[in-house]
């Protein structure tokens, strides 16, 4: 009796509890759905912090302003290491079914991203904005196209530039307003600017080049009249005479003329340059802000000297939208990309970061004109842009790049002659590209 009574009482209590819970959850669901209909669309934005820390705050500021002016969208920036690390994070997340909505990744990552089917083409979205794509610099857009479709929108882009110490030019009897225009002149100038001590040791390099990356060798190859790759990134031409000539020239600067150190990366070269240990250097337009704030001397910036052509490769990062996210978030991500690349914002980002404005009309904005007036060296980037073309990009680009880097280092260290090294490189690269042939 007792037990059944208490059980009945208990079940009555439980029943009330269940009812209450049900009501509560119903209310919550209703409430939540009410909130949800009004809640802004969240957009997760992976951003690589490739430029030093404070720039993350510039991005923060821009995102905040976007969110304020677009109450229906909430962009959440996620800082995710450098380009490589951001790419790994995006790949891991996307392969596990949790992709970011939008990310800035290298322009040349388009192959890896499409091969893994991680991003969506943007043609339809771009087609709805008349005049939008046309306003981008062609050189920056070239890497965005693959299989006849558009995959990325240029954002933080750069070109290689020639930096020179005008004080040292004057001291060496060179015209500080006339940087070298040809490869021959580059060698001659570098010779005159190299300073050696009594024992013949170099005290100051006439020239430094970025030999620890594959960007500058691409410029040499393009200028020798070479081709970097087939349009679909499935064929390489490293054995062509132009590539051999390009690598030979780089090797000669270091070993025959001995006016350039064998191994330098971007940061090393710009440190040497601002410290006065090098009179000239090739470096990215992205180093402009750094050189400007660190150099204690009068310096000039110009397009690279040329050879048969004056072509150079572009570099830097594009916006991508990921696959497998709801349509409303894709639309929101596109809104965000559009806003970040308006002429005013492109100019603003360029002034803060030192990257080149990706839009032609960004140059005409009052803010950018004022910036150019204060910092005329930035003009060189625009002149160089006229010669800027697609950057080298293959399927399995990371692997190909590693191999080219090794080849370049071996050539500089005189392990074997350039022609022989490039022939081996070609064989290795062909093996990597075989599975992608004729896709």
């Amino acid at each position, binding site marked *: 009796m007792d037990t059944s009574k208490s059980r009945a009482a208990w079940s009555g209590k439980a029943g009330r509890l269940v009812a209450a819970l049900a009501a509560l959850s119903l209310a919550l669901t209703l409430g939540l759905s009410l909130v949800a209909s009004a809640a802004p669309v969240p957009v997760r934005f992976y951003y690589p912090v*490739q430029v*030093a820390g*404070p720039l993350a705050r510039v991005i923060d500021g821009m995102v905040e302003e976007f969110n304020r002016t677009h109450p229906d969208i909430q962009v959440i920036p996620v800082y995710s*290491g450098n380009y490589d690390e951001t790419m790994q994070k995006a790949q*891991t997340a996307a392969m596990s*079914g*949790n992709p970011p909505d939008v990310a800035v990744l290298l322009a040349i990552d388009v192959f890896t991203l499409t091969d893994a089917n991680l991003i969506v083409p943007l043609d339809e979205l771009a087609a709805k904005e008349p005049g939008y794509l046309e306003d981008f610099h062609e050189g920056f857009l070239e890497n965005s196209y693959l299989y006849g479709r558009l995959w990325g929108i240029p954002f933080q882009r750069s070109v290689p530039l020639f930096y020179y110490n005008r004080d040292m030019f004057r001291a060496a009897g060179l015209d500080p307003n006339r940087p070298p225009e040809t490869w021959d002149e580059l060698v001659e100038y570098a010779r005159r600017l190299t300073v050696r001590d009594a024992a013949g040791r170099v005290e100051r390099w006439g020239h430094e080049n970025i030999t620890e990356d594959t960007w500058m060798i691409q410029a040499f190859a393009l200028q020798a009249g070479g081709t970097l790759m087939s349009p679909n990134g499935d064929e390489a031409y490293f054995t062509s005479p132009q590539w051999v000539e390009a690598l030979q020239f780089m090797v000669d600067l270091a070993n025959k003329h001995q006016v350039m150190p064998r191994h330098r990366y*971007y940061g090393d070269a*710009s440190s040497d340059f601002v410290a006065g240990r090098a009179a000239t250097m090739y470096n990215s337009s992205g180093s402009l802000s750094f050189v400007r*704030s660190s150099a204690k001397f009068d310096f000039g910036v110009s397009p690279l000297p040329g050879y048969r052509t004056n072509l150079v490769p572009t570099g830097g990062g594009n916006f991508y939208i990921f696959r497998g996210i709801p349509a409303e978030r894709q639309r929101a991500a596109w809104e965000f990309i559009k806003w970040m690349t308006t002429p005013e914002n492109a100019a603003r980002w360029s002034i803060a970061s030192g990257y080149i404005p990706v839009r032609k009309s960004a140059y005409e904005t009052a803010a950018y004109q004022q910036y150019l007036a204060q910092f005329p060296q930035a003009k060189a980037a625009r002149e160089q842009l006229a010669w800027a073309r697609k950057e080298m990009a293959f399927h399995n680009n990371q692997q190909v790049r590693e191999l080219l880097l090794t080849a370049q280092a071996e050539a500089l260290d005189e392990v074997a002659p350039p022609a022989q090294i490039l022939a081996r490189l070609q064989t290795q690269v062909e093996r990597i590209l075989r599975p992608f042939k004729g896709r």
Partner: protein
Amino acid sequence: MVPACVLFLAPFVWLTLTAFKSRQDVFSLTPRWLPTKWVLTNFTEAWQALPFGALYINTFLISFGLLAVQFVTVSLAAYAFARMEFPGRDFLFMVLLGQLMIAPQSTVVPNYLTVSRLGLLDTRTAIALPYVASAFGTFLLRQAFKTVPRELEEAAAVDGCTGLNFLWRMLVPLSRPSYLAFGLVSVTYHWNEFFWPLIVTDTARSRPLTVGLGVFAQTAEGGAEWTLLMAATLIAVGPIILLFLVLQRKFISSFMMSGLKG
């Protein structure tokens, strides 16, 4: 001893001095140790750029919280492998050791999936979860437990101290050096870990110092902001170095004592 000391200290001294330099001082034709002008702006700028407090708490909770959990899992597993008899014990132990051969990078995607399905993305738990069981720790403690003589266990059993009781009252205290060694390895590893936390975290809510400092990473195209980077690094490592200096004596003596006991 003195040259070794100088060798170890030089980078740290360089770091500290660079943090007080102005940018123009970093790059000069002849490298100079002392700043021409001492500046504090690097610290204010670095401090404003990052939520150091939250990052510090996260790092601390992750490394020491994980160690506490590992302490339990590793002790129980080591006890089973060292002291208990059951079929397949040695085979299971081999399987466990096999885990040491797997490169952590190869498990990133499956681990991410697990963490994501558990709804733990962007939490401190997600960072620690894959390491809750430690093959290395289990191995280390199994070896330590095995050195405790059987007679001791039998004597303890006479006094009614068996099983988990024996583990807690006898084996754990007797294996202090091994625990300390494992603790050091585990805490340093997780204090310094970068890649996995980067992958599973998105915000300062869960991010440790290593990932936060990545904001100051060296740029590929430009030069690094060395002065800022050094100031941020100093803020990040300063407290832990202070802690070590204060606790140094205790630390070393506990090492020695437990060494004598074991």
